[in-house]
């Protein structure tokens, strides 16, 4: 079920992110979600795209270091407590959330949550059991 997330190593200095977004813009890469984590020294940009192969190739050609990993993407019910219900499902299953970020589906208007966990399958079955709507890589373009 999961989605493929691209992580990109960035230096933490003015302009570093801009150089990378230019590469993506020049190659017309359509991003579905974007998140940036940083320390004082370096940062990691995390990106969801429809065509992972193309995005990784253009980044590599521009000398970026990337890694691709699986993450869980799940729709958040648009009601008070919607986020809590998703988080609780993961917590109840005893699964540790390494990090997470949200994005809005431009076409569906819905909010989605991307979760990084050690055991993707376990998290997905815990979420499915609670009736959560999971997103697959193939569905990203339609959101």
């Amino acid at each position, binding site marked *: 079920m999961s989605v493929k*997330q691209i992580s990109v*190593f960035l230096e933490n200095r003015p302009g570093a992110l801009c150089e990378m977004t230019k590469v993506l813009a020049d190659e017309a890469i359509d991003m579905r979600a974007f998140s940036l984590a940083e320390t004082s*020294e370096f940062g990691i940009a995390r990106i969801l795209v429809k065509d992972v192969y193309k995005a990784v190739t253009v980044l590599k050609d521009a000398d970026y*270091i*990337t*890694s691709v990993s699986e993450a869980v993407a799940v729709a958040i019910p648009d009601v008070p407590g919607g986020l809590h219900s998703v988080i609780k499902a993961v917590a109840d299953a005893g699964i540790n959330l390494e990090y997470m970020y949200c994005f809005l589906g431009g076409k569906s208007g819905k909010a989605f949550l991307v979760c990084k966990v050690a055991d993707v399958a376990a998290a997905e079955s815990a979420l499915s059991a609670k009736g959560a709507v999971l997103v697959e890589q193939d569905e990203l373009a339609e959101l």
Partner: protein
Amino acid sequence: MERYYQPEIETASREQIRAWQDERLVKQVKHVWDNVPYYRKKMEDAGVCPEDIKGVDDIRKLPFVTKADLREGYPYGLLAEDLKNCVRIQSTSGTTGKRVVAFYTQHDIDLWEDCCARAITAAGGTNEDVCQVSYGYGLFTGGPGLNGGSHKVGCLTIPTSSGNTERQIMFIRDLNTTILCCTPSYAAYLGETMKEMGLSPEEIPLKAGIFGAEAWSEAMRQDIQKTMGIKAYDIYGLTELSGPGVAFECSAQTGMHINEDHFIAEVIDPDTLEPVPDGTYGELVFTAITKEAFPLIRYRTRDIVKLSHEPCPCGRTHVKMSKPRGRSDDMLIIRGVNVFPSQIETVLLNKGYPANYQIVVDRVNNTDTLDVQVEMTPEMFTDNMGEIAARQKDIVDGLKSMLGLKAKVSLVAPKSIVRSEGKAVRVIDKRKI
């Protein structure tokens, strides 16, 4: 079987070497006394005349020559021959101040090229080899020296000079280059590039490399050897003395044989100027006993090395010097601690990082700061911030135990540190002292 370019010299008895040195030193001292007023004045000031020098035992009576003397004498002050007898000049890169201009007679060039030919032969070179000289040609001695040595050995010589990495690799592959001569940092870069092109060591025709002109560590040697599937040999030299080939490595790879028939080596304590015993690090001092045009007497190289007179399995009898631990010019004093860039390089390579790094020294609030910038590699990168931070800390700890200093380690983007085609710029010292 070990091959020698000049076996009767390279494997001569210690007594024979000593006899050559005694005779040539006496002659050389007389030559500079007669022809170089600057030397005569220095010797008079030190209260010594040519008659006092009867052999190597008397060498310590002679005054030292330093880079400051060369600067003062620029350009003709230390010239010992008529200009009409000189056929060439070469010049230093000027990395440590003003350029030095050195003069050569045809005889000087001939002996210099012999020294380089010894180095190429020691690296396994014969007239069946293809030798690509990727050192810079021109004022820099690297290209001309190895070029001449390669001719003497009879190798098919490809004078690519430095730079144009794509063309370098094209020649290596198309012309089946077997011996590569360049700086170690450029060798590492060529290796890295060939690896990126998907070439395995088996697909690279090279068998040996002769890499010098800058300090490099044993770990870097292992790295280069592995990437290109070659044996990497060190070579040492100074423009002031001739150029590459003053000393060179043999198959034992445990130090560089100094060509003692041309150069008398001493190692001294740089503070007390007293000689230190074999096996103890000190400053290397050279006397060129066969040079005609630009003969330096007791020249303080600022290179920190140790000597070994232990018999070498290769059969050469000339004394061996260790890799310079760093030029005393390269040595940084950070918070009162002596730091050589080569020590930092050793830590990084041992931990699997590339040889591309840069050291930035600054002074903030009257305290020296040491920032070691290391390039991130795909193998090191992970999506997990904690793991990356742990790797960073691992380098900090490694540096701390090597140097006794806390350094900052910055992981920088791949290829963001400028690759050098000549001497690598490893240190940026921003301190204004």
